[in-house]
């Protein structure tokens, strides 16, 4: 049995948050397929300028999750339909501070989550990706 599901790219309503297009990288911000949305890893981008927005890790996480909310809402979904989150930190000792801000965005019944630390590019302190129900 082979089912053909439509696969379409997702774009933020705010074009400044289309970081992969701005940097001419070979990926899209997200893909919708069937009932699901798969987002690429998001980093802290200032929605006003489209520039990287660095500072305390709490600010970086808040900016990134705020942008993720915008990305999902642009596609007709929302943070409360997220099922799976990956949080990558440049410094694992930022875990507690990240978690404090994270809970502001997922106050009840939070999604499945995995957190780890890796090298990130351009001095980013965090990179966050998710899978969400489309609608």
């Amino acid at each position, binding site marked *: 049995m082979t089912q053909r599901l439509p696969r379409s790219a997702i774009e933020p309503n705010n074009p400044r948050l289309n970081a992969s297009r701005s940097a001419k990288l070979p990926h899209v*911000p997200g*893909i919708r*397929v069937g009932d699901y949305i798969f987002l690429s890893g998001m980093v802290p981008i200032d929605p006003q300028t489209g520039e990287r927005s660095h500072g305390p890790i709490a600010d970086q996480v808040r900016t990134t999750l705020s942008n993720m909310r915008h990305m999902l809402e642009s596609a007709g979904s929302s943070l409360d339909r997220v099922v799976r989150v990956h949080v990558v930190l440049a410094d694992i000792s930022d875990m507690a501070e990240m978690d404090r801000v994270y809970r502001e965005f997922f106050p009840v019944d939070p999604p499945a989550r995995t957190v780890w630390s890796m090298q990130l*590019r351009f001095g980013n302190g965090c990179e966050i990706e998710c*899978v969400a129900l489309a609608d």
Partner: protein
Amino acid sequence: MAVRGGDFLFVSGLTAIDLQSGAAMRGTTASETRQILTNLKELLGKAGSSLDKVVKVNVLLHSMLEAPNMNEVYQRFFPDPPPARTVCGARLPDGVKVIIECTVLA
């Protein structure tokens, strides 16, 4: 190297190998990326899918300084629009420079 669940194929993290012999093919970030994506194309074809049905890719690199070298090869394999993707630098086993895993429409 891939498991089907419902409408999706979940492909394990692939390293650069010769698909016939299974031997590791260590090289540059660019050559390993090319080998992995060439193998991925063949694996997906055998599973009745294809690169243009890839939904989400995770790329692990031994050094994020190599990201441009990976991108240069990567962009030749995927149609427009390409899949969603995350790239991270990680400590990889056995001298491997690149690992690529993905989720694909079956």
